[in-house]
């Protein structure tokens, strides 16, 4: 790709980025297995192999198949998707504090979830998920319209303001419902903090292909995202259709973050911290930033989920609480490092 005239540094650093990425993939696999094997019920590698070759109704087999496998897959896919959506949001708004929640995804999903749970208690889990996804999408639609999307030009600053306003409205609606209906509050608290526990395999089967497609589209947009990060006017001047790209970014965030929230609730900080860590490691080029944020996001949520089983052992705490505990000091460290550069 590069001729001899270009000094070796670039090639080498590309090589080192690739090597580190492969290393991280192994770490990801390690955490995936840890998530399958560690927990209140002791299991070992033999149980895992047994579950998928010679299934019996032993407690170990049941736990691995019905609880830990879906849980590990959810943590992997949602961690990755939240982190990529965070990267997209920070690129879209040029705001380092942006995360998917800024578009109203979390508050919209939360309100629809709480509303459906409170007023239609007979809904199955799948329908609850769908309704909260609809809530996420609807909130983003409002934000998009308020920021000028319908007229055809979105101002990213207006997007931030509209996001904050819409989030506040949905949050107050949610609180009203919860205040009226204390029973719902108790039952839904786990979801509201963010949790990957207790989800079924069949809701996952629909989720995984959607998220994979989302990631692939991100990869296809990598070059355009590079251009967009030079500033909107420069990107436009180079012939990029920036309005179309902004719409594509928003749709991707709706799909990736909206689906994540619908399944696991608003898990804090993944979409904020991991993109920073990614840039810290590999810089701003999206062909690296995208795979790194996918892998790092997955590792972060998998490890947080494993930790959530042991912090107040034998009880579990919601993974959203763990990401906040693990993430905050880490975030401060990265932010200060970046400042000193």
């Amino acid at each position: 790709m590069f001729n001899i005239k270009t000094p070796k540094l670039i090639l080498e650093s590309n090589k080192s980025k690739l090597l580190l990425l492969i290393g991280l993939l192994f770490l990801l696999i390690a955490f995936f297995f840890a998530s399958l094997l560690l927990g209140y019920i002791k299991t070992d590698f033999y149980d895992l192999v047994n579950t998928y070759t010679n299934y019996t109704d032993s407690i170990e087999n049941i736990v691995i198949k019905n609880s830990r496998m879906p849980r590990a897959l959810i943590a992997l896919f949602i961690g990755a998707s939240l982190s990529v959506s965070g990267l997209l949001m920070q690129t879209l708004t040029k705001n380092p504090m942006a995360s998917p929640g800024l578009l109203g995804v979390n508050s919209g999903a939360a309100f629809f979830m709480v509303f459906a749970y409170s007023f239609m208690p007979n809904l199955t889990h799948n329908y609850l998920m769908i309704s909260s996804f609809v809530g996420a999408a609807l909130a983003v639609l409002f934000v998009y319209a308020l920021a000028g999307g319908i007229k055809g030009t979105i101002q990213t600053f207006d997007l931030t303001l509209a996001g904050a306003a819409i989030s506040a409205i949905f949050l107050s609606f949610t609180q009203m419902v919860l205040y009226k209906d204390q029973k719902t509050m108790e039952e839904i608290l786990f979801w509201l903090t963010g949790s990957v526990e207790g989800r079924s395999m069949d809701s996952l089967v629909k989720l995984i292909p959607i998220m994979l497609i989302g990631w692939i589209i991100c990869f296809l947009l990598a070059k355009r995202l590079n251009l967009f990060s030079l500033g909107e006017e420069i990107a436009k001047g180079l012939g990029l259709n920036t309005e179309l790209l902004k719409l594509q970014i928003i749709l991707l965030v709706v799909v990736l973050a909206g689906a994540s929230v619908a399944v696991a609730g608003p898990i804090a900080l993944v979409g904020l911290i991991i993109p920073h860590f990614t840039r810290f490691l590999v810089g701003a080029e999206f062909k690296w930033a995208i795979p790194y944020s996918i892998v790092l996001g997955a590792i972060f949520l998998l490890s947080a989920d494993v930790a959530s089983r042991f912090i107040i052992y034998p009880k579990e705490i919601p993974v959203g609480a763990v990401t906040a505990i693990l993430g905050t000091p880490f975030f401060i460290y990265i932010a200060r490092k970046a400042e000193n550069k």
Partner: protein
Amino acid sequence: MNISTNNLTLGYGDFIVLKDINVTIPKNKVTILVGSNGCGKSTLLKTMARLLKPMSGNVVLGDMDIFQKPSKEIAKELAILTQSPDAPSDLTVFNLVKQGRYPYQSWFNQWSKEDENIVEYALEKTGLSSIRNKKLSELSGGQKQRVWIAMTLAQQTEIILLDEPTNHLDIKYKIEVLDLLKHLNQHEKRTIVIVLHDINLACRYADHIIAIKDGKVYAEGDPKEIVTEKLINDVFDINAKIIECPLFKTPMCITYQNLSV
């Protein structure tokens, strides 16, 4: 490729900034737009580069309305450098200049040897070859501006528009940047349009000046012919004495408010 405007009216919301502007940018010349703050010279430049939509009228590039042409095609004929752009600070010089090749790439046309050579040329022209792997955060203001100019060079366009390319630069770098643009004009026959604050530098570097006042073109032409004490007074609202620059033989304005303070 010619660029001209046709009864162009520009503004924001209901507010009209420029009305019925008809200008033709002379080919292979350096044109400099001057005027006081907020007169609309940057707005005019951005509209000529299709970054802003006019309220009415049109911009004609070659023989077509600029808004009828695919944006990527325009980017092969016309490059624009907007005012103090802001790229991620960990981007390297090479990786930023490389972005100038975007209009030439597509799914079927990935990065080629030719693209590589053109980026090399752009780096060489702007004297950046030796610092190609430095990050933007490690560069001085003057170097950074040269990187952006290199990016527009990599675009390989006949026309280059620049909005205040010397803003915030030390005088040494101001001259350096303007010399580079003049060099590109003289040795590569590029048509260059610059928005510039400094009337004396404008007189020195421009073949053609367009002075804007009260939403209209006040005067346009060779600075030696049009830059008069009256023009300075009307356009910039300041008194001036005009002498001939001893070095470049161009008009030089000594501006003042009162002769005794």
